[in-house]
């Protein structure tokens, strides 16, 4: 039977500007989805742009080559990670135009 796991990366917290999610190891998994849940909004329809980053050591990071994803609005926003992400993975996040109250999870299967 395959393995599946969901982990929180951020829980019920206001964010603005730029931040990166906690370095996460996923060498056991074949597929991964980041779920960004926007619970509350302050400002004029702020946007969140997320880029998937990968790393060889969990310290130095680079884009995985996929296009950044921009989201807005209260609700659930999945970001499916392209295959061949290797082991270390994180989201680089930029919030523009206000503040967002977020939950972020990573779901993985393999």
């Amino acid at each position: 039977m395959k393995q599946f796991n969901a982990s929180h990366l951020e829980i019920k917290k206001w964010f603005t500007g730029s931040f990166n999610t906690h370095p996460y190891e996923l060498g056991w998994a074949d597929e991964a989805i980041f779920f960004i849940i926007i619970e509350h909004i302050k400002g004029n329809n702020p946007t969140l742009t997320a880029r998937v980053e990968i790393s060889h050591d969990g310290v130095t990071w680079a884009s995985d080559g996929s296009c950044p994803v921009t989201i807005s609005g209260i609700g659930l926003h999945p970001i499916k990670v392209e295959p061949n992400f290797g082991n270390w993975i994180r989201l680089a996040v930029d919030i523009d135009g206000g503040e967002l109250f977020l939950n972020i999870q990573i779901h993985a299967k393999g």
Partner: protein
Amino acid sequence: MSVDEILLRSRFQPLERILCYDVFNTGFNGWMTLLPNFTEYPDFDVPPTLVNKDQWPPVMLSSATYRYPGSHGAMSGTFSLKLSTRPVHSPYEEIPAPGSMGHAIKRLSFYRPGSRYLQIECWFSYTAEQDSLDPEGTPQPGLHEKSIRAFGMGFDIQERGERYQVGVRHLNCFNGNLVQRWEIENSADVTDKEWAFGLEGDWCKRGIDPWWFGRRYPDGRHEAFQIIPDSHQKLIYNETDCKLNWQYMRLKIDTLNREYVEFQCQDRIWDLRGTHVTDVPGYHRIDNLINPLFWVETDQDRRVFFYIDSVVVSQE
């Protein structure tokens, strides 16, 4: 006898009945991050608290992959369970900073009458993030052993209407002072208010959640922990942050008399008999609870990591 059983009996000293034998190369096995309770308005919010627990980072299955050597793997395969911190800390004597600890827990229960002894044993390792060199003039500026403040293991227990938390921590380094000694969870004679750093308004009880409650002092004392005599022990921190050595530890307690029994790390054993636990009246809905747990804490603004290859929880 299967190879698995040979390994179990060779690497561990389980009591008569094994509740769980978790080898993390096979998966999480029900171990997860400890998080706060989501019980309040307006949307499953967290009760107000002095210590923000929702910043403890997620536990993960780690291949222990580093910049130069690549993957270290685990003792039993490729993956171990990894606890980590965020790169934040407060001075030792202050309330732990949000994210300065990582905490893993599994949730079990008593299941047979007459169980007296309860034991947890594991193979573990630890290291600090190989993020940046320490300032000019520091000997071995890329060796970050002093970044690890503490790690430990133990239980949250409630039986026969009393709740208590028992465990052992390796106080490795506080405010840069390398002490490397073992301490058991046992509370000083303080009030619930003092236990909560002298502040009003928290729900905490003396003896409960010793990992982040209980006042700490600049000399290393902690009102939640009691130093084990003659417990200075230099564990293996092998020359560089990217070398792991798998080490053994075991804690046995007596749930009938509510006492510590003994602690072992590597080839040393400490007799703890006669040391009563700090117990409080039981909480609602959790009688017969056994929650084994691990934690790690950073002493600098640097992530530190605690790895568990495998763990056995047993009773008799």
